[in-house]
């Protein structure tokens, strides 16, 4: 097939259409986009406020247009279509001809025409530009209100909350999310959202917006009451963008929307419409998954496949609204004849099943507070699978955490659609596993499963694991050939059996002599559990050279030295000592990325002398050589900074001194910022603390380096004591459960249940091990000693710091030259 295809709109659905059309024929494709940037992930728009950039949200990659030779015209709106001559006019082009035209114009936010709706600081919530305008206005605002308590309205409310505003939600109906939830579910959601600090006003009909007495704007309601706010966001539903279609004389619905048939064709067979602008069977689909399906149908139809059809879509959704899990599946309101229902609630969660009159089939469900059963329940509905004998078991809490409720993935039919965003079935997942996929990550890459909203991730992972098991592939997590065990197992065995040496462990649970993989891993476990000096004769031969010499090996066989500088705060006297020591021993000096000073080029035999001088000046080991806490970076905070709201330096020093010397599966970096400007870059650290006016926000599992990861918020506005307790638990939980050399970021991404699970364990103590983890940490803190201090006091350890056992000659292989006034390896 060939010809000119023009697409109007480069949103998520428009982009998906292009991807579907690519490779299906020799088309000359042009896309018009009125926004200044190509398609981005509007579903994740709110994450823009938690630090994601426009680039993070982007889904249309620049290379895509280069590789496919499709033309993208940004910042250019299509103004009119002439369906007779098959040309269109845009803001910049007088005439562009098409053979097939695809409308992917999406929708626009509906703004009720109340008086004053166009006052200053009234916004909608749709594009990155909207968000930027809201962010700018929030800086000079204290109170924000969202008009509309639907799904998007609550997303917008979260954004206002994140921007630090006192947040209100105004809803016309008698409950939140009226479309998806019933009264009880709406009530619980309201309670939860209010406990998170936003105020919900129900049954309020905004009559007009006028100037306020206390704040900049006042909403006047029909019942005579009012509410004042500086900033207003309208989120009262969407309206399909059908103006182009109307102008071209295409058939549109009574309440808007371009009418399409099952091939996604409009009333003009050369013009297609897809996504939120399209009206199919009298319905608009305001979700991305049906839009994607339409995109595929239209692309394949244009490419000549006559038989592809769009036949409606499931509108089940699972979301996290202001941190509250909410899901609505199928016929949630029990609209079907004689539908029966089961409800369970304890005022923390609300779960409802809607079942057929004979109670054999699940028709719909509502989940609030805990949506972990979403995947299995959705599959029951979509595949019309038989319900278990006692359907209530599916929602009743079970005391046995290991008991699997509902259905095993084996019972899912092959045709079951697991990822509705990207149309991936169970059969496709199994095929991908047979073709070599072994992880959720590789599955995402190969099939796009779980790569959009991610809601199906846990289920997809279960299917992958089940399929691997079926093929006899044991999920290999053995440490190495000497230990047929995972690191976690060895950790627990070490504790349970009180094993204190490598010999004891390999004797009971391993074989052979060990190697450079298991020895340092076991040494790390022993250090985490018992915190014995790592250079005791029993432990020294297990250590990597860095731990063995308590310094960092460099490429020419010399070592670098990093004394601890807690929080990055250092006295002038100590700075002078570092300079003097470096000068005396001819060391190269460099400031590290972690607010410390690194002294390079020391020979093994020089290390004790250097450290004697450093310890005399009050320094201690910085553990830069260990898989251990490295540093706690800080900004100067409220002590000096005009904007600081808490004393970040004191907090950073306290934290660094608490966790110094803590050995872990991998290195641990931390930071404390004194205000939301985040100068310490805490959200790129394993543990990041950011001061707020009410306390501290705790972020975890961030990372810089090779695979940067933005940290997740674990707890907000907590006091200092709670902060320390949570960090204690988090670190010990990580140390107990991570794989060898697994940073917290990778650990989290492989942890079933993700950050929510960590939050339950750490903040809600769901496993009941909080006190135990804190006690473990208390033991570590009490047993800390500076390894270098211990080393220079212990003659048999000092004896190992020499190059030749039989000569005092230095290593002739170590040669330096001078560059920019400092020694470097020749």
């Amino acid at each position, binding site marked *: 097939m060939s010809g000119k295809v023009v697409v109007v709109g480069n949103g998520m659905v428009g982009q998906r259409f292009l991807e579907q059309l690519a490779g299906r024929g020799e088309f000359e494709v042009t896309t018009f986009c009125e926004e200044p940037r190509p398609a981005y992930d509007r579903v994740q728009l709110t994450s823009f406020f938690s630090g994601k950039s426009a680039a993070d949200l982007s889904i249309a990659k620049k290379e895509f247009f280069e590789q496919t030779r499709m033309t993208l015209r940004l910042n250019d709106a299509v103004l009119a279509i002439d369906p007779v001559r098959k040309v269109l006019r845009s803001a910049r082009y007088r005439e562009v001809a098409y053979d097939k035209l695809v409308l992917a114009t999406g929708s626009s936010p509906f703004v009720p025409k109340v008086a004053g709706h166009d006052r200053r600081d009234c916004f909608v919530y749709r594009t990155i530009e909207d968000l930027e305008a809201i962010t700018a206005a929030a800086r000079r605002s204290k109170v924000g209100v969202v008009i509309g308590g639907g799904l998007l309205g609550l997303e917008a409310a979260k954004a206002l909350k994140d921007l630090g505003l006192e947040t209100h939600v105004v809803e016309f109906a008698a409950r939140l999310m009226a479309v998806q939830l019933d009264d009880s579910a709406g009530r619980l959601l309201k309670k939860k959202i209010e406990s998170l600090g936003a105020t919900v006003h129900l049954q309020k009909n905004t009559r007009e917006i006028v100037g306020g007495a206390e704040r900049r704007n006042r909403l006047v309601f029909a019942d005579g009451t009012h509410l004042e706010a500086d900033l207003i966001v309208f989120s009262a539903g969407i309206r399909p963008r059908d103006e182009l279609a109307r102008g071209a004389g295409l058939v549109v619905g009574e309440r808007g929307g371009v009418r399409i048939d099952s091939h996604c064709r409009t009333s003009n067979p050369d013009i297609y419409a897809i996504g939120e602008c399209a009206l199919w069977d009298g319905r608009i689909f305001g979700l991305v998954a049906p839009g994607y399906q339409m995109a595929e149908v239209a692309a394949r139809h244009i490419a000549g496949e006559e038989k592809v059809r769009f036949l409606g879509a499931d509108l089940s959704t699972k979301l996290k609204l202001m941190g509250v899990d909410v899901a609505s599946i199928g016929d949630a309101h029990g609209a079907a004849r004689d539908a029966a229902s089961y409800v369970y609630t304890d005022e923390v969660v609300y779960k409802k099943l809607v079942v057929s009159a004979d109670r054999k089939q699940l028709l719909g469900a509502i989940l609030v507070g805990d949506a972990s059963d979403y995947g299995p329940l959705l599959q029951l509905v979509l595949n019309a699978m038989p319900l278990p004998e006692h359907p209530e078991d599916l929602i009743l809490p079970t005391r046995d955490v290991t008991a699997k409720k509902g259905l095993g993935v084996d019972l899912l039919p092959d045709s079951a659609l697991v990822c509705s965003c990207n149309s991936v079935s169970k059969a496709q997942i199994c095929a991908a596993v047979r073709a070599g996929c072994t992880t959720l990550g590789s599955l995402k890459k190969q099939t796009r499963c779980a790569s959009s909203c991610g809601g199906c991730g846990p289920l997809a992972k279960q299917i992958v694991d089940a399929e691997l098991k079926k093929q006899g592939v044991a999920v290999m997590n053995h440490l190495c*050939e000497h230990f047929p065990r995972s690191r976690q197992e060895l950790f627990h065995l070490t504790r349970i059996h009180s094993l204190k040496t490598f010999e004891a462990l390999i004797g009971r649970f391993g074989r052979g*002599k060990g190697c450079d993989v298991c020895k340092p891993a076991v040494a790390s476990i022993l250090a985490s559990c018992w915190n014995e000096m790592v250079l005791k004769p029993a432990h020294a*031969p297990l250590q990597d050279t860095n731990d063995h010499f308590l310094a960092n090996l460099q490429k020419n066989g010399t070592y670098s030295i990093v004394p601890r500088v807690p929080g990055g705060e250092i006295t002038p006297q100590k700075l002078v000592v570092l300079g003097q020591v470096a000068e005396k021993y001819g060391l190269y000096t460099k400031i590290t990325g972690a607010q410390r000073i690194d002294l390079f080029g020391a020979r093994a035999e020089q290390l004790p002398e250097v450290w004697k001088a450093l310890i005399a000046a009050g320094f201690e080991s910085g553990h830069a050589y260990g898989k251990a806490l490295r540093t706690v970076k800080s900004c100067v905070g409220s002590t000096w900074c005009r904007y600081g709201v808490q004393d970040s330096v004191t907090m950073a020093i306290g934290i660094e001194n608490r966790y110094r010397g803590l050995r872990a599966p991998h290195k641990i970096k931390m930071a404390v910022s004194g205000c939301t400007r985040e100068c310490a870059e805490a959200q790129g650290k394993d543990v990041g603390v950011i001061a707020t006016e009410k306390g501290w926000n705790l972020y975890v599992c961030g990372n810089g380096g090779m695979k940067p990861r933005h940290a997740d918020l674990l707890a907000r506005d907590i006091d200092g004591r709670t902060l320390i307790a949570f960090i204690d638990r988090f670190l010990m939980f990580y140390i107990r459960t991570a794989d060898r050399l697994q940073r917290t970021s990778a650990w989290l991404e492989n942890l079933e249940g993700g950050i929510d699970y960590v939050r339950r364990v750490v903040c809600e103590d769901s496993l009941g091990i909080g006190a135990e983890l804190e006690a473990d940490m208390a033991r570590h803190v009490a047993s800390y000693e500076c390894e270098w201090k211990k080393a220079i006091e212990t003659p048999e350890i000092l004896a190992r710091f020499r190059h030749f*056992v039989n000569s005092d*000659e230095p290593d002739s292989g170590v040669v330096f030259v001078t560059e920019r006034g400092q020694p470097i390896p020749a």
Partner: protein
Amino acid sequence: MRICSFNQILNNSGVAALVGGEQVAIFRVDQEVYAIGNRDPFSGANVLARGIVGDLKGELVVASPVYKQHFSLLTGRCIEDPSVSVPVYRARVEGADIQIL
């Protein structure tokens, strides 16, 4: 030539020695000693004595502390790249001493 006393080397670890101008890495594994060149051919640094001693499929090896290649303590051969090897020296325990022959 006497290098040092046997108990100067911790079990399953190594030391470097200067033998006739050459750098030799000497390892103790239980009651035996082994000696290979101390220079790591991949980095050029004289550090093999500081590697971790162990076995791979039953063969005694030391892992270079720089880039972690393994060298056989018996043959000096690099496990990952058999075209590379380090010299092997004859070492023995004589009474309380370690000797290089």
